[in-house]
């Protein structure tokens, strides 16, 4: 049994076609369970496995699934893979989809069967052309072998899977905005409750899961909950695709046990900082996570541990800030992104983020004033709590800002005092 189930087929040379996928044990779980296993048992298995969502929120997958009501026979039930990977610093789902598309398909098949879902969508971002082509080809192969479509593997169960290509906008990665986009509408998030399990796609029961989450399912079904739990080093079960980008020697993405330390990821796998650069800080899980510092290097990458340290594990791919890049500039870049990607529905995000962006640009350009920091803090309080806004986009935007003000305040003050960015001229 592999220690790296998610990437076991990824050699780096093209995707696994269905024959190779089957040869390495693929679709075994499907053949053993579709039309045979009791979906209730499969649901319990996923609950027991302690699998947490891999898209950033870390919500227990089994629990999420358990909120789907029993089938009422009044229409479709949907399973959607969130392949809209656009969180800055994140590039893990691309890896799996381009290089082992059948893993996602099998994961969706087993999940859909557990949920009594009959229609599936892979909502994929438009720019992932290669992944789209490979997924479509894989779906076609799977259909030909009766893993998808009507009466799968001779059973009564049907599951039709399709790739749906987005038309842009980061907010489509928010699960309810994704649903609206799939329905052909503007991608404004929905208020919850009601949850997608009750009223999702076209008002029907729907589950949205991240690609990586779904890819874990075949392995859990094959090897069991205990096996899955044993893969993790600490409190969290399974493996995770961790990664790093920025001025590290070897930026990339690797499947490692949950609970691997940040130090190991950065120093061993990412090779440490490039020559001439020092680590100043990092966002552990993408743009919408709080900064951590070299003081936090020995923390395990686990949801609770990172949360206790004042940040979030998020997607698990780190964005590394080096000592020659301006933290104010970095945060300004982040807030420009967040402001641009606002859907425009609620006041704090729509109006508040551009103001924050403007102030950061001003400070970075050397025109900042002390009062600007007060405004930033006040806006952060206004925007930064879930519940203040319609969705988690703007609160996410405030995480790098608030933590940046906490850890790099002196740098902000220096910009204001000096009337210039001290890093100007660094290349």
């Amino acid at each position: 049994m592999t220690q790296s189930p998610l990437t076991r087929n990824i050699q780096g040379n093209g995707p696994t076609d269905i024959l190779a996928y089957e040869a390495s044990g693929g679709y075994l779980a499907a053949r053993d369970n579709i039309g045979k296993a009791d979906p209730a048992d499969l649901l319990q298995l996923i609950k027991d496995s302690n699998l947490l969502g891999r898209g950033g929120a870390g919500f227990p997958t089994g629990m999420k699934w358990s909120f789907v009501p029993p089938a009422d026979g009044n229409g479709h039930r949907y399973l959607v893979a969130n392949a809209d990977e656009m969180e800055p610093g994140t590039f893990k789902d691309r890896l799996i989809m381009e290089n082992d598309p059948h893993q996602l398909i099998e994961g969706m098949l087993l999940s859909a069967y557990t949920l009594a879902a009959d229609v599936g969508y892979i909502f994929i971002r438009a720019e992932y052309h290669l992944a789209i082509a490979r997924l479509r080809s894989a779906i076609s192969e799977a259909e030909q072998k009766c893993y998808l479509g009507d009466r799968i593997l001779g059973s009564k169960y049907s599951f039709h899977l399709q790739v749906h290509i987005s038309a842009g906008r980061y907010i489509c990665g928010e699960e309810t905005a994704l649903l609206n986009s799939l329905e052909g509408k503007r991608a404004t998030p929905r208020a919850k409750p009601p949850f997608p399990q009750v009223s999702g796609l076209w008002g029907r029961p729907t589950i949205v899961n991240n690609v990586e989450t779904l890819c874990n399912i075949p392995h859990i079904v094959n090897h069991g909950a205990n096996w899955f739990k044993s893969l993790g080093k600490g409190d969290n079960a399974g493996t995770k695709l961790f990664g790093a980008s920025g001025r590290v020697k070897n930026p990339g993405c690797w499947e490692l046990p949950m609970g691997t330390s940040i130090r190991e990821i950065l120093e061993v796998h990412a090779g440490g900082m490039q020559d001439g650069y020092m680590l100043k800080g990092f966002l552990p899980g993408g743009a919408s996570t709080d900064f951590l510092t070299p003081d936090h290097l020995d923390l395990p990458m686990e949801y609770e541990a990172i949360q206790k340290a004042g940040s979030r594990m998020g997607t698990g791919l780190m964005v590394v800030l080096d000592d020659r890049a301006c933290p104010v500039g970095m945060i300004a870049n982040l807030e420009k992104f967040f402001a641009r990607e606002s859907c425009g529905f609620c006041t704090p995000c729509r109006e508040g983020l551009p103001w924050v962006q403007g102030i950061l640009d001003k400070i970075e350009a050397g025109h900042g004033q002390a009062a600007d920091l007060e405004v930033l803090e006040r806006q952060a309080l206004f925007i930064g709590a879930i519940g203040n806004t319609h969705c988690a986009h703007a609160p996410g935007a405030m995480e790098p800002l608030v933590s940046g003000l906490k850890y790099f305040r002196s740098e902000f003050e220096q910009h204001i005092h000096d009337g210039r960015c001290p890093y100007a001229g660094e290349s």
Partner: protein
Amino acid sequence: MKSELINALSRAEIDAIEAEITHLPDRKSAAIDALKIVQSQRGWISDDSLSAIAKLLNMSAAELDGIATFYNLIFRHPVGEQVILFCDSVSCWLMNGEKVCSKLQRTLGIQHGETTADGQYTLLPVTCLGDCDHAPAMMVGESLHHDLTVDNIEAIFK
């Protein structure tokens, strides 16, 4: 009137859109798919294209345009033969992306949102392309280019 406007769409476009609709509970759910199909043929969505698609889907032009103008990859202005999507998110920024993009702008002689005089390229910013271990990155049409530097960017456009 309706048939005239729908005839503004090609047979292939109509067939492709109808194929999408077969998977959906109603016609207007194909709005975004339809916009992308027509845009893939014409490069952008003109007012006429928009009206024709709306008529085909039994929507008003306003309903469809409200959707079209939400999405950054639906172009409601003419674009060049190829659209350059240059990532301006944080990992590319950390890896000198802004300077590389400036070099590109000087090379092509255009700013963000503009099209080269020969109609070949339109330059647009884009949110993280999911290629951060090879930052800075950009797409030119459907091709992904990465590990860009101020030295190697020019060659891509020769």
